């Protein structure tokens, strides 16, 4: 399913209040932009920064919109486009590679019926190939919303993992 079919996000009053709370927790300090963006991204169901919110931040923090987008596009953990409820980040670095991470790539593509960076029809999962997140002792590993799942050496373990994520 193509990402362009997902509707643009609307900045509701409720969401704006939550964002204001995050800004307050960061002392409304523009230099804490990276942390602010990460916290806001966690609020959004599909884990990304909608355009409306980027402009809202620019106004509230008195930071140029170009600086906001410079940050979002620079850092791998931040996204300008909607991802999914459970973005499955598969490690593509050498330790996981030599521990047969291709099993994870092929199994997930097969089970979910999507390719890398595509989203399942229900918006639940997307597949992302990411660099090492320090779980090398549990290779091959994936990371989903900040939680690491390691030792994914066969199809059964991967199916098990998916069934946990509702």
């Amino acid at each position, binding site marked *: 399913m193509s990402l362009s079919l997902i509707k643009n996000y609307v900045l509701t009053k409720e969401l704006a209040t939550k964002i204001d709370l995050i800004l307050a927790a960061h002392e409304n300090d523009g230099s804490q932009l990276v942390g602010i963006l990460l916290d806001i991204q966690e609020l959004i169901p599909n884990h990304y920064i909608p355009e409306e919110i980027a402009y809202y931040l620019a106004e509230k923090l008195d930071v140029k919109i170009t600086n906001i987008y410079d940050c979002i596009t620079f850092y791998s953990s931040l996204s300008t486009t909607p991802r999914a409820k459970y973005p499955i980040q598969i490690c593509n670095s050498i330790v996981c*590679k030599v521990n047969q991470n291709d099993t994870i790539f092929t199994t997930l593509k097969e089970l979910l019926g999507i390719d890398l960076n595509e989203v399942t029809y229900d918006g639940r999962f997307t597949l992302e190939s990411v*660099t090492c997140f320090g779980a090398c002792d549990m290779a091959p590993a994936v990371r989903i919303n900040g939680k690491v799942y390691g030792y994914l050496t066969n199809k059964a373990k991967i199916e098990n993992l998916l069934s946990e994520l509702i």
Partner: protein
Amino acid sequence: MSKTVRFITKNFGKYDVSSIGSYMECGGFDALKKAITLSGEEIAAIVAEAKIKGRGGAAYDMGRKLAQAKSVIAEKKVVICNADEGEPCTFKDRMLLENDPFNLIESMIIAGYTVDAEDGYIYLREEYCHLRPLLLNAIRQARTYGFLGTNILGKGFNFEIHLYSGAGAYVCGEGTALIESIEGKAGRPRMKPPFIKQCGLYNRPTCVNNVESLSLLSHILLDENKEYQTYGMGDSIGTKLISVAGNVKNPGVFEIPFGTTVREIVYDLAGGIDGDRPIRLLQFGGASGKIASSKILDTPYTYEDLKRSGVTVGSGAILIIDDRTSLIEFLQSTQEFFSHESCGQCTPCREGNRHMKLFLQKLADGTHTEKDIASMKKIAKLMAMSSLCGLGETAQSALVSAINQFEDVFHVKSSEVQG
């Protein structure tokens, strides 16, 4: 049978990592109490005597760094803990943060006291965000107990620690890029000079140290009997955390005395190779590290011996790959990493990485020529000499050492030799 040591890791499993009371019961904050009876210069001298080198990868003499930071005359100095641990195959700092978070807090306060800093920042990579609550709790409890704030332990010393998060950028492990990130910008490295010890975070004098380097501070200060100096070999005194992974049966973090041989590390500590297969190569220090063949197995793990064998300690990572992966597959994977992580600012790194990727594909397809190999060597040298930061400088370390150690892989078949 080789052994591991419990000097840096002595607190692991000894206390409840969410409780400052539990930490203090096993000697927590004794090092800080000792530190404030000494001067900054004295503390730097103790560190220098133990010949501690920075453990993030650059191996700069830590005692010298602290002494230099102390000598800068300025208000509002800063100390930073670099917890960005982005080097692939490196997860030793993760172990320290998970198992001894209070030690890091205590050591940062000691570092702040040593160099006369008012503010400490911990820059924790986003991929370790599950450790944020642990660290925030430790900071909060330290403040409650008066180890942070104003007039700490009645010495007129003020210090605060702020926890910042990375957002998925390997280049932010570089000191100036890290600082740019804390300042709320994209993490692009700065031109040096000016050096961050004079002009760093918000243009203030800044001292950046790795998690492991800092965690040593409290242990060394309490080491009255100089137990640390009884370990090691030659100029590589003491112990080191290494993270061993890849095709080994027992990957993990081990604290070893310097001088343990690579063979002992791979076969005794890490349990040997999966399926007892032959080793293809070993890489020391993460993706930016040089590689070696199994000839290095009998080399002692010390700064000097590894250097003589053509590799470096680097981040303390040791990657072992068996014969199921080819050298070229390994090199292409490494190149993918650097192509992705290059910030793109400087031409040597941005264009160099781009072209190296194309050359490596030719190598993989078997369509490379002698001229291509010569170009690869030239570009690698150019990147090492003229990149803006350490990422560009070390991106081709693996490739250059591969050309030295495995030259037959790069030979051009005679029918394809062209001018």
